[in-house]
């Protein structure tokens, strides 16, 4: 019984993967026609890596780190600097001139991403050393501060020979095809979820749930938090590198605190402590940010409902819609999720076939229970009414 269930699950997984690959192949076959979809998918995948990495430290280890944007910034610059074609470097760095020591070093994308991860991990280890020994709140503020420091350093003239200061790095070669991007993202997420499912992941959760008890079980708090923080930051760096390749440039103005908050929105919406939730959150937020772009434009009613053109009503401006409204909606969404739906889409459990299959039955059960309750209440009310009548009658 069990094995058959397992084999069904494997088949379902295989079918899903095949479908995804097929869909991607379809998109890849005509990149010009599907460029919009490709953009959304690539962006979502990259944000999914960032969201899962943030979830690793916030959701699974319970340490409130808000340095994602900072690490992404480092990753973006490192990847950008080492992947732009050597020929174009003098042109890009025309103002400062690229430093000789790195001028001729060009790395393949994977190596550049690995370098980003390594550097981000090292930096995280250094920051974590003082901060992770303290309460989680200090981590939040220290990592936010760190993001600002990173932005300042990369925008500084003094490092112009390396970072091109405020001009940033541009002309980064794009992904060879959509598979490259999706595959790298997939591998990153896979590694993180394997870590979470390992013995170390269990230690993370123990630290999150009760640090005193975890410590009494022989789990070294600092080293466990440090591991999670370093891995999370390293993958945030990879996500930053991917984002730079995706946007074909790395500029400090991309990596503001708002980016961290955006990724936090994905994590919270998807479900704190759930890898699949973060992935869904990333796709949902990225997708809807594209689809809801119309909220930022000013319309008259006839633009939206053609039948109204010519009438007075049709030429009236649609209220509220103007630049910035989309982000207001998103921030309200974040608040609503935090206040009323704090488990997010998946809660802290992972999405699995069993769970998806059980959704209809769970819903049915909930419906039945509600119906039963309504029935009972009705009966009670009827009884009460009957009693009242009797009393009145006497």
């Amino acid at each position, binding site marked *: 019984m069990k094995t058959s269930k397992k084999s069904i699950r494997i088949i379902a997984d295989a079918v899903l993967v095949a479908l995804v690959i097929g869909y991607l192949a379809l998109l890849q076959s005509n990149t010009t026609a599907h460029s919009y979809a490709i953009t959304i998918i690539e962006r979502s995948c990259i944000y999914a890596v960032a969201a899962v990495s943030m979830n690793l430290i916030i959701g699974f280890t319970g340490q409130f780190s808000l340095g994602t944007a900072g690490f992404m910034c480092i990753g973006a610059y490192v990847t950008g600097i080492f992947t732009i074609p050597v020929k174009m470097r003098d042109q890009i760095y025309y103002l400062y001139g690229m430093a000789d020591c790195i001028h001729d070093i060009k790395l393949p994308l994977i190596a550049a991403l690995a370098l980003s991860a390594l550097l981000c991990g090292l930096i995280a280890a250094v920051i974590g050393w003082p901060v992770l020994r303290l309460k989680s709140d200090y981590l939040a503020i220290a990592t936010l501060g760190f993001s600002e420091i990173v932005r300042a350093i990369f925008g500084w003239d003094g490092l112009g020979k390396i970072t091109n200061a405020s001009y940033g790095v541009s002309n980064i070669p794009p992904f060879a095809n959509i598979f490259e991007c999706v595959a790298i993202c997939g591998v990153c997420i896979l590694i993180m979820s394997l870590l979470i499912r390992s013995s170390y992941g269990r230690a993370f959760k123990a630290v999150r749930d009760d640090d005193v008890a975890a410590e*009494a*079980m022989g*789990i070294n708090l600092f080293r466990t938090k440090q591991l999670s923080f370093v891995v999370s930051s390293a993958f945030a760096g990879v996500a930053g590198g991917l984002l730079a390749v995706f946007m074909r440039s790395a500029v400090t103005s991309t990596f503001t605190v708002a980016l961290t908050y955006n990724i936090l929105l994905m994590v919270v919406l998807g479900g704190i402590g759930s890898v699949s939730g973060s992935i869904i959150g990333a796709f949902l937020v990225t997708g809807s940010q594209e689809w809801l772009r119309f909220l930022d434009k000013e319309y008259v009613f006839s633009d939206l409902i053609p039948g109204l053109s010519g009438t007075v009503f049709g030429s009236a401006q649609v209220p509220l819609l103007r630049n910035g409204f989309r982000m207001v909606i998103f921030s309200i969404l974040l608040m609503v999720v935090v206040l009323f739906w704090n488990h997010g889409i998946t809660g802290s459990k992972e999405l699995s076939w069993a769970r998806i299959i059980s959704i209809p039955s769970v819903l049915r059960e909930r419906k039945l229970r509600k119906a039963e309750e309504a029935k009972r209440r009705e009966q009670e009310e009827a009884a009460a009414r009957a009693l009242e009548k009797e009393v009145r009658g006497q």
Partner: protein
Amino acid sequence: MSVQEMEKRKDSAAAEGVKASETKSETAAAQKKENVLRLEDLTMQFGGVVAVNNLSLEVNKGEIVALIGPNGAGKTTAFNCITGVYQPTNGRITFLGQTLMEGCPTGRAAKTYAGEKAGKYTKNIHHSPDEICRAGIARTFQNIRLFPKQSVFDNVLVAKHMRAKQNPFTATFGLNHAEEKRMREETWALLKEQNLDSYASYEAGSLPYGMQRRLEIARALATDPKLLCLDEPAAGMNPQETLDLSDFIKKIRDQYHLTILLIEHHMNLVMGISDRIYCIDFGKLIAKGTAEEVANDPKVISAYLGMQEVV
């Protein structure tokens, strides 16, 4: 079983003998019984309050030793020093001959130090709770501290993490397959032994209170301890459950060759299972000895009942 019981009786008889004839037989007894935990002049001061004052205590291999005292006597503080939560202000804690903790008042604490034996200890040695657990002292908490949202199985499994031979890389990529399998099997075995296996997939927080206590003890056992420290294991239990618990404690002592130090309020439990009892009040040791001796000690009675000492 019966052999062990007899041995234990012999032990307790020997302990009584120690009381009767002084130092000579004490060294003889120490030779016979391996010392596990020793507190020397332990003092813990918070600001001006001396929570534990000059407490010396010994626990020998295979014993069940109880630390009793009225509320606020400093029992849990002493416990927290042993398990590394606090650094003692003064004194030394040795475990299997190794110094785990040593404290001497320094800086501002030296000026305000109100305890005894200042200057006897000169070093500050501190081990964190996880290092102490690694050394072989496991503990439970007065107010149960499980991971309530995790399954019963995971609660115990996580305690195996400490002794597993692995690193993040091997663990992530499944290269520690054998180790992981061993951890899971041992966890299953432990749950079976504690009759918790049928609840393995339940959320720990959903178990009834008594079972949560047992699970917490099982989790402590999973760290392969030599000394098990139980902080008020019978708190909130009814008489029947308490009775079961005392059998349970004896059973795990024999089964896992443990030494047990417990803090307790329930006199029934303490009297029934302890080989020796230490009683403290206001941080100071006021009596030690077998259950009977302590129960009849006027100082203990007055500490518990608040009577004036009868001369």
